């Protein structure tokens, strides 16, 4: 059905379609609308989930963990400081191999207080064992949230999934939304290690070094195996519902001499920059990274000039995306740090990054003479 919805509403609509057993969430700008909408669905009887209005994000994830280990399907949503406050528990959810699904509305981190879009919050969760996908449209926020459950709950994965959408730029943007009936695209959840009082077991207790090491290896193996599961899930989603997604979204890349790379909404707006550059005779292409974990194969970038826009940073090491990509391609790039704290970055600006690229250098957009 054709609707118009914000990114936040789209996530809530997806949750309504999935009907998790338990939703535990704490409000934070700009995620608030997700929690409000879910609470309204539950109160109005449209969504038969248990909604736990927890007193913090730490407790939100802890409650999801407690519910999930019984074999229940769980969902939460957060942003920025909420995600950081949850950090101990995000590690726990992954280590406990629980298929919790979370929407994170990407927002910068204080001080100073800033409520606008930035990816640094989610990137600080990069090494926790969560799968992470970054979306660029309202429809994609909806579709990715639905697919996240199937991917997380697959027995070859059993790791939590985080769906990231840009604060305000997407969370509050209204775009067309087609909702679906998931049917058996989302099979019933069967958690192999669910608590069973008839077969008592200990979970997460003291663990010796050898066993601990093996558990970490097991997580690593699962995140590698998740590549296949994601591919299969997105393919099946396309077959049933007609919308195709992949690890990356490539635009005019085939004959491109220079490719610009970004995540989230910037990764979509840069297609307009590519059109502009092509008119000027620059053979440009764009590549939007959707999945950060597992990290995609970017062999397509080999031998091309690459401009990477990071809406994030790792102090002293530059853009996180740039660092990850260079580690894989072993080739220099032009690294642009832009859009922090909701900084406005237009397609004109992006075209300019490409025009003025200096491969091997780093540039903080909006800061004078810093290349």
């Amino acid at each position, binding site marked *: 059905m054709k609707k118009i919805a914000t990114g936040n509403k789209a996530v809530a609509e997806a949750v309504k379609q999935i009907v998790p057993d338990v939703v535990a969430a704490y409000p934070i700008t700009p995620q608030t609308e997700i929690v409000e909408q879910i609470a309204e669905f539950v109160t109005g009887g449209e969504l038969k989930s248990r909604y736990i209005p927890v007193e913090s994000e730490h407790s939100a994830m802890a409650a999801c963990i407690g519910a999930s280990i019984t074999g229940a399907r769980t969902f939460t949503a957060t942003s920025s400081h909420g995600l950081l406050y949850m950090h101990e528990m995000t590690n726990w959810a992954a280590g406990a191999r629980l298929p919790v699904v979370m929407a994170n509305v990407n927002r910068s981190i204080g001080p100073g207080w800033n409520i606008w879009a930035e990816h640094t919050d989610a990137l600080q969760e990069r090494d926790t064992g969560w799968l992470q996908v970054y979306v660029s449209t309202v429809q994609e926020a909806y579709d990715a949230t639905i697919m996240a459950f199937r991917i997380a709950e697959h027995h070859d994965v059993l790791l939590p999934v985080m769906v990231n959408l840009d604060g305000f730029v997407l969370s509050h943007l209204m775009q067309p939304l087609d909702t679906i009936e998931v049917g058996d695209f989302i099979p019933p959840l069967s958690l192999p290690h669910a608590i069973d009082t008839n077969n008592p077991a200990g979970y997460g207790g003291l663990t010796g070094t050898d066993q601990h090491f093996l558990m970490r290896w097991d997580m690593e193996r699962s995140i590698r195996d998740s590549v296949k599961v994601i591919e299969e899930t997105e393919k099946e989603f396309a077959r049933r519902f007609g919308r195709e997604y992949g690890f990356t979204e490539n635009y005019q890349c085939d004959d491109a001499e220079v490719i610009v790379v970004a995540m989230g909404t910037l990764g979509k707006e840069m297609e307009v920059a590519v059109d502009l550059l092509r008119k000027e005779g620059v053979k440009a292409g764009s590549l939007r990274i959707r999945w950060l974990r597992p990290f995609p194969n970017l062999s397509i970038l080999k031998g091309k000039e690459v401009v990477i826009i990071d809406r994030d940073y790792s102090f002293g090491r530059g853009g996180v995306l740039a660092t990850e990509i260079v580690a894989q391609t072993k080739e220099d790039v032009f690294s642009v740090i832009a859009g922090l704290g909701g900084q406005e970055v*237009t397609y004109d600006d992006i075209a300019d990054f490409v025009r003025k690229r200096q491969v091997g250098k780093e540039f903080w957009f909006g800061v004078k003479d810093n290349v």
Partner: protein
Amino acid sequence: MFEIRIHSRGGQGGVTAARLLALAAIYDGKHATAAPFYGAERRGAPIVSFVRIDDKPVRIYSQIRKPDMVVVLDASVMDVVDVLSGLKEGGKVLVNSRQKREFAGFKSASVDLTGIALKENLVVSGSPILNTPVIGALAKMGIVSVDSAKKAIKEMFTDERNVRVAETAYQELIA
């Protein structure tokens, strides 16, 4: 692509107007996005919201700098904000006003949205509803079709008066 910037004050329904307009455009078979100015909205403070309408999916997320059209829901905003800023040459201006307002170099139109809402007693929390009548005026200006405008209003509001005020604004637009 057709880009519209809506000026209003916090609480006057500028964001809802943007949403209604985008929804009507979608019903017309077009692609559209509607966005509030991202930030903490304060009641009474001047705010802007944005609508983009195109035949292809809209891939631009940044704010509208060079609109094709400006809509002013509250004429008093013009005392503090340059509502014509960046408006394309020959662009359209629609102002909520009893008298016709002229803006040199632009296609100007006026309609008394406040009066229309008050006549129907369409008032919420002491404020006349401006976001549904304005869609009627925009339909008259050809931004969206009349059918889609009505359908969008009916989708979002159950109160019949919202359709009536849109119809009145359609008839009373002074261009």
